[in-house]
């Protein structure tokens, strides 16, 4: 069954602040702009490190990759020059990343904890 996309936002205050976007549902051609908008909100508020928690993504199309690509470029062009990090990708996310070779391009971590420790 298709599932609406929901995005929850949390902040991790460790050695460096990290904004985490927790995605659940379908990231497709209709909803990818929701992800871009949430990331834009975080960037506008001053976030320089964004981590996507992807374990709850039930479907992802190339539009999801388009959103990740866009966020990554904005982060890199910012003053911090940070990279977008991806945590706990679901099978739906891994399918797209691996088919197009993006699993070797993005920083992908098996768990949220591993991703947070990498900062």
């Amino acid at each position, binding site marked *: *069954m*298709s*599932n609406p996309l929901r995005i929850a936002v949390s902040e991790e205050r460790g050695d460096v602040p990290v904004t985490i976007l927790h995605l659940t549902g*379908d990231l*497709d*051609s*209709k909803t990818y702009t929701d992800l871009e908008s949430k990331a834009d909100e975080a960037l506008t508020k001053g976030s320089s490190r964004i981590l996507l928690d992807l374990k709850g993504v039930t*479907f992802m*199309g*190339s*539009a999801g*990759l*388009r959103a990740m*690509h*866009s966020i*990554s*470029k904005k982060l*890199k062009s910012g003053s911090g020059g940070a990279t977008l990090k991806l945590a706990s990708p679901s*099978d*739906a996310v891994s*399918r*797209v990343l691996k*088919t*197009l*070779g*993006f699993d070797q*391009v993005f920083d992908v971590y098996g768990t949220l904890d591993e991703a947070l420790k990498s900062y």
Partner: protein
Amino acid sequence: MSRGACGAWRLKVKSQLDNLGRVRDFVSGQVLPDDLPGDGAGEFLLAVDEAVSNVMMHGAPSGDADIEVQFTRDPAALSVFIRDDAPLYDPTKVEGPGVIDSPLERSEPGGFGLVLIRRLVDELSYRVTEDGRNELVLVKKRA
């Protein structure tokens, strides 16, 4: 959703992104657990989603075109026929990025949909139907 005379299943939707989930539900509901090995079912669903998304976003973005999705199964393969009355367009003639060397350096982040389709199905073909519609056929072999 309706069943045709030859046992093919069809879904008709308007060319609106709100209907993408219905298309996925239709296709995933037709594929049986032992139809395709490995991740084949997920791959086929992704390829169909990309093809229908292309029609909705680029072929008929105004949303007034009709899209028909037909699913068929035979011993050798699963097939999905996507027919629409948007302006005629053959996506199989589009040259996508072949080898994606430095994906994050691409200035335009789109354009991966056709690459995905080509990599996830065994056959991809296009024709204009007798009544003048686009018809894209995606075939996934069962073994």
